[in-house]
């Protein structure tokens, strides 16, 4: 089962785990990314290009599922306004064996950072508002997988 969602409502992690696990899998690896409240952050806003984000996530999901023979994959990205502590992204990959589940999870979270058409805007408690600049590290982590572009 491949489940890919881009949603403005809260990501219900426990419910997504339950849904994903319905089949029972040998190994499941997950990644949960949350809004950090560093530096006085009050709100994170994620803007997206709907068509490109959906296509990007769908392509990533199918590439990972094929390559690592996943028995299930859940890939959910939050958009819109979020408070510190809220979940931005959930990746949950299952396979018969641990190496495949772990590799797929890591691939997806690295590639998500660069392949999905999303822009972050941060609002701080002191009233400052700023769009996040591109980070060098994201690009180089994603390039580790470059030869695997679907």
């Amino acid at each position, binding site marked *: 089962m491949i489940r890919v969602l881009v949603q403005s409502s809260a990501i219900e992690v426990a419910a997504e785990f339950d849904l994903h696990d319905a089949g029972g899998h040998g190994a499941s690896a997950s990644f949960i990314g949350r809004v950090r409240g560093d530096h006085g952050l009050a709100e994170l806003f*994620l803007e997206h290009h709907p068509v490109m984000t959906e296509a990007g996530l769908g392509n990533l999901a199918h590439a990972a599922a094929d390559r690592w023979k996943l028995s299930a994959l859940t890939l959910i990205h939050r958009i819109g306004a979020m408070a510190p502590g809220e979940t931005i992204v959930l990746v949950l990959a299952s396979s018969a064996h641990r190496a495949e589940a772990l590799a797929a999870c890591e691939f997806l979270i690295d590639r*998500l950072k660069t392949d999905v058409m999303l822009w972050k805007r941060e609002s701080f408690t002191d009233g400052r508002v700023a769009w996040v600049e*591109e980070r060098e590290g994201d690009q180089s982590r994603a390039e580790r997988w470059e030869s695997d572009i679907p």
Partner: protein
Amino acid sequence: MALNIAYFSWVRERMGVADETVDVPAGVGDVGALIAWLAARDARGALAFAEPQRIRAAIDGVMMGPDAPLSGARELALFPPVTGG
């Protein structure tokens, strides 16, 4: 030629609209020329496209460079590098 343009992130904020339909003048044939034309059109465009090297473009959902021709395009999206995920 009529073209739908969508703006995202701070490009959208500086342009003051999320999307618009423009009548592309004759002689503006590719993405780079269109960005230059928008920058020259008014103060909002001058602000949004002051640094064209920071602008990325997609035609009908596919990333394109400044040399990409506009003919046949339905939607041009203009935005800064993504910072998502």
